């Protein structure tokens, strides 16, 4: 429930009738409308009293505070989300995946985990997927040991850091080691809040508050805000998956639907403490990707558990308003050679993924020509005039596939069998073959085709 332009204009000089134009807009009303849409800054108006300015600033702030953890290229931005469900617009800031290291763990285990978080990177449709943070936990009771862990992580990695300790002194001394990294401190509770505030108020870093319920968080965040600590993350202390869904949903709704400031912060989730084993941790984490936290902490990661989680995060945070498409080019599936089949399809990402995965399943190395069609599926693209014989023909010519194969046989999707005639005219050297209607038929189709050619 953001502030409307019509409400803002009343607070501007002379009730919005000054119209001095010094802000660069023709009227106070136009300026107010821009402010409401976050398209202008309050600083542009030289006549606002400090009180009104502070009041408007507060009212115009995003309903969920943007919190930034870490510094430099590896810093993580969370919060600033605008919707409860991704189809209402889109989710914006992907949650950071954190790997937990306790100072009780043996040296070798610590080294292994640091190595894992560095090494586990996955290429995926042109992106590199990886975990984002290290969460360092004080459990040993020996402060020196915790400090040594923090120091080691700072010296050997540039990951952003979450510092976790029930002992405030240990938390603060660890912070002094890695203050330049802008670590997140966890947990701030009703019992330690005064001590934390006095320890960090001179140079605040982000803090995460923990309560036993959503309600318990409210007085804590109010107190932090009064002390000038604005970058806050919430942990409502949920005990199981259903409680977590409830608490996360209530926090998200309170901030977005009620503009309730004390809960207008991103959250943190701890699959590492909620789940009894690694596979269930990933399930908790997958739930959290959908149900809101900005940071998700895991006790361990490996190749086969981290990849599904990171792909899932990418899927859920894809902007649903933009049709997903892949680049127009000739893709190599398997290791095709000059005798391998040539297939053509449209560039909707889903079409590409499915066709590519079915070709892989067929075990026949193939050249897959993907034609730009505004991210539409084959049949829709044909209906929209983006996959006609007249446009597929020239695309095949300029794609370079003619330099890659000896033969001139092109397999087209069965759903657009009707473009065959046009294509034969556009590509007189090529034999046009109508392939299967469904991608799922490719594994049965391709081996037979290749066998036929051999004979």
């Amino acid at each position: 429930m953001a502030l409307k332009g019509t409400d803002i204009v009343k607070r501007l000089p002379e009730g919005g009738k000054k119209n001095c134009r010094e802000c660069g807009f023709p009227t106070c009303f136009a300026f107010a409308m821009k402010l409401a849409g976050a398209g202008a800054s309050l600083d542009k108006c030289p006549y606002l009293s400090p009180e009104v300015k502070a009041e408007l600033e507060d009212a115009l702030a995003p309903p969920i505070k943007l919190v930034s953890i870490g510094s430099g290229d590896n810093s993580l931005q969370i919060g600033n989300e605008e919707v409860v469900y991704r189809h209402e617009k889109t989710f914006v800031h992907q949650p950071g995946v954190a790997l937990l290291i306790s100072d009780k763990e043996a040296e070798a285990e610590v080294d292994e985990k640091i190595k894992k978080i560095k090494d586990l990177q996955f290429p995926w449709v042109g992106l590199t997927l990886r975990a984002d943070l290290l969460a360092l936990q004080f459990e040993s009771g020996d402060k020196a040991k915790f400090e040594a862990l923090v120091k080691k992580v700072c010296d050997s990695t540039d990951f952003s850091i979450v510092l976790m300790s029930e002992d405030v002194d240990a938390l603060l001394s660890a912070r002094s080691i890695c203050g330049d990294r802008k670590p997140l401190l966890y947990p701030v509770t009703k019992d330690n809040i005064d001590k934390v505030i006095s320890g960090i108020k001179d140079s605040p870093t982000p803090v995460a508050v923990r309560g036993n319920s959503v309600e318990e968080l409210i007085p804590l965040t109010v107190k932090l805000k009064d002390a000038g600590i604005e970058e806050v993350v919430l942990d409502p202390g949920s005990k199981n998956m259903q409680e977590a869904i409830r608490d996360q949903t209530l926090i998200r709704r309170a901030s977005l639907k009620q503009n309730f400031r004390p809960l207008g912060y991103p959250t943190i989730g701890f699959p590492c403490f909620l789940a009894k084993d690694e596979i269930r941790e990933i399930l908790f984490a997958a739930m959290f990707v959908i149900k809101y936290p900005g940071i998700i902490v895991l006790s361990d990661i490996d190749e086969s558990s981290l990849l599904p989680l990171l792909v899932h995060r990418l899927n859920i945070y894809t902007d649903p308003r933009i049709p997903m498409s892949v680049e127009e080019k000739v893709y190599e599936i398997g290791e095709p050679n000059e005798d391998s089949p040539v297939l053509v399809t449209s560039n909707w990402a889903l079409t590409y993924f499915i066709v590519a995965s079915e070709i892989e399943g067929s075990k026949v190395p193939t050249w897959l020509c993907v034609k730009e069609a505004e991210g539409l599926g084959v049949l829709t693209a044909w209906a929209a005039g983006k996959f006609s014989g007249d446009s597929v023909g020239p695309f095949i010519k300029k794609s370079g596939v003619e330099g890659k194969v000896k033969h001139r046989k092109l397999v087209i999707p069965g759903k657009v069998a009707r473009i065959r005639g046009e294509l034969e005219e556009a590509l007189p050297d090529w034999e046009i073959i109508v392939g299967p209607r469904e991608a799922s038929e490719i594994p049965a189709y391709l081996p037979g085709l290749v066998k036929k050619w051999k004979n």
Partner: protein
Amino acid sequence: MEYKAPLETYSGKVGEVVIGKGEKAIKIGGESVLPFHFFEGTIENRPRIALEVYDTEPEGWAEWVREPYKDVLSDPAGWAKKCLDFGADLVCLRLASTDPAGANAPADKAADMVKQVVSAIKAPVIVCGSGDEAKDVEVLTKVAEVCDGDKLLLGPVVKENYELISKAALDHGHCIIAQTPLDINLEKELNVKLLKSLPLDRIVIDPLSSALGYGMEYSFTIMERTKHIGVMFGDGTMQMPIIADLGGECWKTKQAKESQEQGLLWESVTALSLLLAGANILVLRHPESLKLMREVVDGRI
């Protein structure tokens, strides 16, 4: 500023569909809150979980998906019983043999086999044709006739073939799966057409389930929107329960074939997402994924 928990009230309710007859019957749907929103109302019927059974021994399965079924892969009735031993609520019998592009088995042979499986187990059965629009009409209408009164869930029914199959379902007391290709407008269009001849409590919708990394977010969002339209906005043409048939999609991915753990997570993460979006029936392939999803729907995780 006073905090008042932002609870919502809902105007719509998902239709309740009964599958299976007599003691075997199970109910799906019926909820009038969003998925897992136990804090806003009661959800009487938890999501149900089916495991797949094939009428012919499947090819190309990774060894870790074959292993649990290895002694029953060519015995559909035995396979179905095994699914129940693993804890499935119902089975999804796939008539792969009827595919005209494959063995092209005749409809009456397939129907007899369905009857055998139905008689062999104490749980409801979902029966899926090969997906060939024309052949499925022959096969599914025959199945409907031979299994008269067994209250099967028959599918997929698509806009090209819904008339004859839904008539057979109505005449012989079965329910159908209305399938549309990842498009909420087509989904509604088919529902509207079906509702002219079938009551709401005979229809389950299948907006298609894509696997993680292969378009899962489309399935997720269509299911989530369907629930919103049905439950929050009370649109009576979008209040059927949803089936998420995802096991096969997940296990055919390259990633699921690379390792057992990755495959299990590929299936489980997809299944969990679609549960959160609002699926009322999951169709899974691996018994271990079933175990995990059971914990989720029972609130034991």
